[in-house]
């Protein structure tokens, strides 16, 4: 589709995060990682341009937080001098505005964090956007390995520190995992110099969300270990006794070779050998 010389158009959707300790508005961690990843794409396509897009309210706190993304610019021409803010009233659903905007000027890649740090934080936005745009979505992105024509090879984070290699056809929506490279520091100068372009956009109130009750998170009750046993002795042992393996296999007087074989058999059964 695109000739090789042309750079990649990347839209990074950024949100206003909240500091976990102080509760102050800041750049959201995963979105900043997403922007870092988008900036690293210049290594594959030197002329890549990054577009910053935010849909939300316009006030001082938010502006300070959003300037944190602008402060990640290095040099001129990456597109980071400007952030587009689609202005939304309080309690609006930002999906229609973003979808309309992205459909009007489609980039080749949309990068977002996995979930917002305030509000519902359901992590649904990239999925709904991908569905509306009809683009494939890959979650948990860690690293982009290569881009050829309209195919991008990337690494996806799996639990337990594992990685999976995936090839996706562009245009696509990707969400960034917390294991991706940490974002660079935001520099004060570029953050002040950058401009925030406010645009009017479609505003759809989120009626369902308005009807819900929000409260600070309660501590979840810990599950008790319930032992269902007919015998009082078993119940007492389970409640008071030290944890016992029970049913474990004990090999004594075996040669090292036999022991090694027994261990390898167990490892193979569990499928941890790789």
């Amino acid at each position, binding site marked *: 589709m695109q000739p090789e010389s042309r750079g990649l158009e990347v839209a990074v959707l950024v949100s206003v995060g909240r500091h976990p300790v102080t509760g102050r508005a800041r750049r959201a961690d995963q979105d900043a990682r997403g922007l870092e990843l988008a900036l690293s794409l210049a290594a594959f396509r030197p002329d890549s341009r990054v577009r910053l897009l935010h849909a939300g309210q316009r006030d001082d706190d938010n502006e300070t937080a959003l300037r944190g993304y602008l402060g990640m610019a290095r040099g001129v021409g990456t597109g980071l001098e400007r952030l587009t803010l689609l202005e939304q009233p309080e309690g609006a659903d930002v999906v229609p505005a973003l979808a309309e905007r992205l459909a009007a000027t489609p980039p080749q890649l949309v990068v977002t964090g996995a979930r917002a740090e305030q509000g519902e934080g359901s*992590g649904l936005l990239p999925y709904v956007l991908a569905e509306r745009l009809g683009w494939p979505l890959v979650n948990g992105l860690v690293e982009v390995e290569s881009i050829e024509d309209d195919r991008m090879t990337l690494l996806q984070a799996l639990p337990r*520190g594992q990685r999976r*290699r995936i090839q996706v056809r562009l245009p696509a929506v990707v969400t960034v995992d917390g294991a991706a490279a940490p974002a660079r520091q935001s520099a004060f100068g570029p953050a002040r110099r950058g401009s925030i372009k406010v645009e009017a956009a479609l505003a759809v109130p989120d009626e369902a969300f308005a009807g819900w009750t929000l409260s600070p*998170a309660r501590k979840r009750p810990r599950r008790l270990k319930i032992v269902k046993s007919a*015998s009082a002795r078993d119940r007492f042992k389970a409640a008071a006794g030290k944890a016992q*393996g029970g049913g474990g296999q004990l090999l004594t007087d075996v040669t090292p070779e036999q022991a090694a074989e027994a261990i390898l058999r167990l*490892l193979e059964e569990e499928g941890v*050998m790789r």
Partner: protein
Amino acid sequence: MNREIDTIRRDPRREWIARNRLHPEHLGVLAELGRQGASAATEWMGPNGVIRKNPHAPGFTGPNGLKRIDRSGVQQAAAAGRGAGHRMVAADERRRVTIEAPAFLVAVVPDMPGGRLSSHDRDLLGLARQLADADPARPCAVLAVAFGEHNREGGGELKEQAFAEAGVDRLLTIEGDGHTGFVPEAWLAGLVAVERELAPRHWLLPDSALGGADLGRRLAARLGERPATGVWQVDADATAPSGWRCTARGAVDRLDIQRPLPRVVLALAECAEPVSETRHAAEAMTLSQSPPEALSRIEDLGQVAVDPAGVALAEAEFILSAGNGVKDWEGFHHAARMLGATEGASRVAVDDGFMPRDRQVGATGTWVTARVYVAVGISGAIQHLQGIQGCDKVVAINRDSGCDMIKRADLAVIGDSSSILAALVDVLERDPALTRKGEKQDAA
């Protein structure tokens, strides 16, 4: 003893002789009844139909000549070789439930890491049962949707049996070549086909990084439903349209959101108690037409080999851990490299300077959640055992057969650790195919 009495044909005279130690035919009759050497009958039915008990019969003489009564039945069972079977029969007295014509379906899509139901899946099935059994007059069925990839039998337990015990009434396995690896588009097409044909009232998925969170959000977006994510509590609520209200986590676990329960629910672990008192049918179902072949724009190129030394200890899946008993440290590191295991250590090994501090396992170090934890020369201080509580399988290699780690271990080998590790390395070097095995398997 009861069981002999329960048989239809009884010989009262013979029973009487068996009870009478002074009868000249006593030993012969005991032998015929197969109770030679066993103590006298403890319970029998008297002539008037009343159960009589011999209070002197239970128990055995302990090592110091005192009479001991073991009410757990472990020792007597070992002596008689009879109790074990009886106890196993008693263990499976769960109520069997079969739902013929369900009023509606509650669909669950379990993660099934490694082909087995995880504890998160079981919790979710418990939640599904809660939703399905709310109205006893209109019983509803729980439908589990599994994909072809998960069709392996795991851990020796039969798959259907595991599903039945977890509370599944209907089991739908979507098979096909295209369902292996990471194929969210094919999975989604399968789920949409289920939706079109069976229209379950609720869709429940685990909100877990193993895949449920991703698939559930895809499904919700495709169905045009707004799901509840991070649900950890569900209560009945007559004012809600669905009759249920849920509490969900929001804003990175800092908010609790109370809302009516929607159709698509992504629930956290421990959202409900797993099913334990009933057994269900787990009847296999099929779709009348197979789901359409989805156009695949996402291609899975397989899992990438990760340097095990770089994996954080807390999330490593396979740990080889060293303690005071390890003398040959070169051999230990070599074995860890050959096995592809992440290295761990006990406090002593760290204090003595053989391993870095960030590799320490235990209450003062890292709490690990490995699937397999191999403890080499670790005797198992209580702080260390606390740190490995979350491990599935523990293998102990130790010289001391009486240490606590041996009691905790699923497989314990008594012997010299360095020679056993050397033998392990030998086997791996002789058969390099072993080390490549499991590469295709999904990480759990």
